[in-house]
């Protein structure tokens, strides 16, 4: 396996960690592996990952919001990545109707599998709310992440 593939796996694990509503991702982790993955876009990619982590930390610290909303933005974006796959969408709808619980996902490798399964599902905001078990305004939550992203560039 090439180092680029390994770096991609590691970066996807960082996203999986954020999906688990944890924030163990540190700047040095992201910095090292993004550089190994792509020297060109390393700075932008690092900023993007850290923006999600910071947004989550900010919500956690404020106690006013739900850090799960940031997770919701991530899940939404992951599901809206890649080619839309009707079969995947249908599978997720069925799964959600059958009461699939996001709480079953506990480990990094499981979260990474979840991310892979979500890709191309194009879930709606309502689906994401169903998945998380609470209502969510993804547009509003994503503004928070965007703010953090911009702050990192200053």
């Amino acid at each position, binding site marked *: 396996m090439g180092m680029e593939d390994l770096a991609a*796996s590691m970066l*996807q694990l960082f996203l999986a960690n954020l999906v688990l509503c944890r924030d163990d991702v*540190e700047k*040095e982790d992201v910095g090292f592996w993004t550089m190994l993955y792509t020297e060109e876009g390393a700075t932008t990619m690092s900023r993007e990952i850290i923006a999600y982590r910071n947004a989550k930390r900010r919500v956690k610290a404020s106690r006013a919001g739900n850090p799960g909303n940031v997770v919701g933005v991530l899940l939404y974006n992951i599901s809206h990545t890649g080619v839309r796959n009707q079969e995947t969408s249908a599978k997720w709808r069925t799964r959600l109707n059958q009461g699939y619980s996001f709480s079953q996902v506990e480990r990094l490798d499981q979260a990474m599998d979840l991310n892979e399964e979500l890709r191309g599902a194009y879930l*709606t905001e309502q689906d994401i709310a169903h998945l998380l078990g609470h209502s969510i305004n993804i547009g509003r939550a994503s503004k928070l*992440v*965007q703010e953090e*992203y911009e702050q990192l560039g200053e």
Partner: protein
Amino acid sequence: MTQNDFPYAPWGKLQELVGKSSRKLSYHRHPSRAVLCAYLQQALPQRPRNWSEERAEKLNRGRLTDWTMWEVAAHISNCSRCRSRIKALENAQGKQTAMNWLRILKDTLRKPRLAPVGWALAGVQAALLIGVLVWMNTTLPSQPITTVPVYIDTNNSSYNSTVLSADLIRIELRGEARIDEITTLMQTLQLQLVGPDSEGLYLIKKSDGIYLTQEDAQIIQEIQAHPLLLRITDKAELPGDQGG
């Protein structure tokens, strides 16, 4: 509700990354069993002291000696062999915990000083056993535990109400016996275990509802063919037979 058909920012470089299909490859070297157990228990350090290209190279070859959470997870996500190992370890850990509980309960009830309150404790044991079975059912996906209650009746009231005779056969579950193995055996033999009593022993009910006695030589022979799972006790000292 906002209807959107595209990702929300910031999702530029990440979109490229997530859009890339991951490749599952086999490694020549793998983390040890102890490392995988530690990973499952989240007992490894999250990251190494320092990341370096040299370390990344070692990770890429599965040659690390001091694995961290990030690194084990990265290896597992790319290695189908270690994914299977992790699943097997998860199941084994769950079963081991449940069997340890059963053993502790059985040992506790065998202590002579507890004999006067044996039946009261048997009730508690039955409740805990049911709890353990429910817990196993929810945590061990590969195990057909849902059928267990049908074949192991932990309701001691039916035990108490049984007209006991000296001929009744009682058996002991071996400590190392797995619940799913016992269940399969009981299903095959069309029998049901009833108990446990204060000594941790079980009566055996046949499909016609009658308890197994010394006269059922053929069935006893079949049970004795599974010495690792069940042990037929010597001449039964009847549980709850207060009248002598």
